[in-house]
C-alpha cells in the first residue's frame, strides 16, 4: 500500500517535471505573439477599414471619371467656341452655352465688343441657314415637279401602280423637306431675335457711355455692318422697333461714323416697289 502511494507520488512528480520541461519559454511566446498579431494587422485589415478603403477607392474612381469628363467637356466646349461650329453641328448648343458664360464673365468694357462678335456670329449662321434653305426649296420644287410628271405619264395599270408608289415616296420626301424647312425657319427667327437683342445691348452700352471713345468708332462700324446686313423684318421685331433701334444707333454713333440709314431705307422701299411692279 505504501509502495503504491510512493509510486503514485513519483508518477505525479515525474509528470509535473515533464510538464514543466515542456512549457514554452515566456519570451518566445511574447515574441511569437507580437509577430503573429503584427501579421494579422498587416495582412487582414479590419472590416471597417476595408469598407472605408472601398469607399475611398470608389470615391477615387468617381473623382477620376469626373475629372476626365470635365476635361473632355471643357475641351469640347473650347473647340466648339473657337471653331465657331455650324448650327447643325452636335456641339452647337455647347457653343451657345460657352458664349453665354463668356458674356457673363466679360468685363463691362469687353462686353459690347463680345456682344457685337456674337451678333456677327448669329448673322453668319442666319446666312448659312438661308443658303441651306434655298437648296431645300429647290429640292422641294423638283420633287413637286417629279410628282406631277409621274401623275401625268402613267397610262397602263402597271405604270399607274408604279407611279403611285413613286408619288407616295416623293410626297413623303417633300413632307420631310418642308418640315425641315419649317424647322430651319424657326431657328432662323430665333437667331435673328438673339442677334437683335445683342445689338440692342451694345447700343445700350454705347448710349450709357460705357464704351471707351477710342473703341467707339470700330465698335460702331461693326454694329453698322451687321445692322445693314440684317435686312429682313422677320422675328419678333416690328417695323417701329427697328426704326427706333436705327434712330438710337444714329444718335449715338453718328458722331463717329457716317450712317446713311435714310438712303438705305429709300433704296429698300424702291426695291420693294420694283419687285411689286
Amino acid at each position, binding site marked *: 500500500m505504501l509502495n503504491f502511494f510512493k509510486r503514485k507520488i*513519483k508518477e505525479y512528480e*515525474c509528470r509535473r517535471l*515533464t510538464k514543466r520541461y515542456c512549457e*514554452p*519559454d515566456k519570451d518566445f*511566446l511574447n515574441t*511569437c*505573439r507580437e509577430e503573429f*498579431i503584427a501579421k494579422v494587422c498587416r*495582412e487582414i485589415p479590419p472590416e471597417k477599414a476595408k469598407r472605408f478603403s472601398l469607399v475611398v477607392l470608389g470615391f477615387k474612381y468617381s473623382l477620376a471619371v469626373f475629372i476626365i469628363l470635365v476635361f473632355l467637356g471643357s475641351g469640347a466646349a473650347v473647340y466648339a467656341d473657337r471653331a465657331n461650329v455650324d448650327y447643325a453641328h452636335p456641339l452647337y448648343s455647347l457653343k451657345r452655352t460657352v458664349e453665354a458664360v463668356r458674356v457673363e464673365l466679360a468685363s463691362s468694357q469687353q462686353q459690347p465688343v463680345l456682344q457685337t462678335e456674337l451678333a456677327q456670329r448669329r448673322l453668319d449662321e442666319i446666312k448659312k441657314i438661308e443658303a441651306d434653305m434655298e437648296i431645300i426649296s429647290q429640292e422641294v420644287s423638283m420633287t413637286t415637279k417629279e410628282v406631277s410628271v409621274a401623275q401625268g405619264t402613267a397610262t397602263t395599270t402597271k405604270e399607274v401602280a408604279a407611279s403611285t408608289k413613286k408619288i407616295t415616296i416623293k410626297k413623303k420626301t417633300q413632307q420631310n423637306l418642308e418640315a425641315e424647312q419649317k424647322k430651319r425657319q424657326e431657328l432662323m427667327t430665333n437667331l435673328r431675335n438673339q442677334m437683335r437683342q445683342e445689338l440692342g445691348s451694345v447700343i445700350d452700352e454705347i448710349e450709357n457711355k460705357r464704351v471707351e471713345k477710342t473703341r467707339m468708332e470700330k465698335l460702331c462700324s461693326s454694329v453698322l455692318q451687321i445692322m445693314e446686313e440684317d435686312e429682313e423684318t422677320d422675328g419678333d421685331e416690328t417695323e417701329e422697333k427697328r426704326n427706333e433701334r436705327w434712330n438710337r444707333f444714329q444718335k449715338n454713333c453718328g458722331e463717329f461714323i457716317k450712317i446713311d440709314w435714310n438712303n438705305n431705307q429709300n433704296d429698300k422701299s424702291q426695291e420693294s416697289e420694283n419687285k411689286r411692279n
Partner: protein
Amino acid sequence: MTDRFNKLAHRLKEGERKAGEEIFDYFAPQFFRFFLVRTGNRETAEDLTQEIFLKVIDKIGTFNEDLGSFSGWIWQIAKNNVKDYYRKKKTVALSDFVLQNKENSDFLKGKNDPKTELKMTEMLDLIKDLNEEEQEVFSLRYLSDLSYRDISKTTKKSESSLRVLVHRVNKKIRKLFNNA
C-alpha cells in the same frame, strides 16, 4: 469549444486583433508541447510553432465554418507542419530532446532528486518510443490537460478510441514506474 473557436476564427477573418490574441494564447502552448514531443527539440518546436501561426493567417480565408471546427482545422495544419518538417529533415535525433539544451540540463541537474532526474530521462525515452498517435494524445492529455471531448474534436477520433489510446500510454508509463 467548437462554437467558441469558430466565432473567434470568424472575428479573426474580419481582422480583429483580440480574436487573434485569444487564439494564440490558447493554442500556442499546446502546439509547442506537441511539436516538442514530436520533434524532441525545443528550437525546432519554437520554429514550428511560429510557422504555424503565420500559416494560419495565410490560410484563414480558406477556413469554412460549415465544414468543421476551427480547432480541428488548425490542428490539421499543425500535423501537416510536422510531416513537412520530417520530410525535409528525414532523421531527427531524439537525444536532442533531453540534454542539448542548457536550460534543460540545468533543469535536470539542478536541485532535483537524482532518482527523479533519472526517471525523467527514462520518461523522455519512453516518449521517444511512443508512436505518432500516442505522442499526439500524450501531448494533449498529459501535457495540455485537455478533456477527451476536446481531444476528439482536435484529432477527429472518437472518445472511446482515445480512451483506449490513453490507457495504452498509461500502461507504458506505469510499467516504467513499476520497474523502479
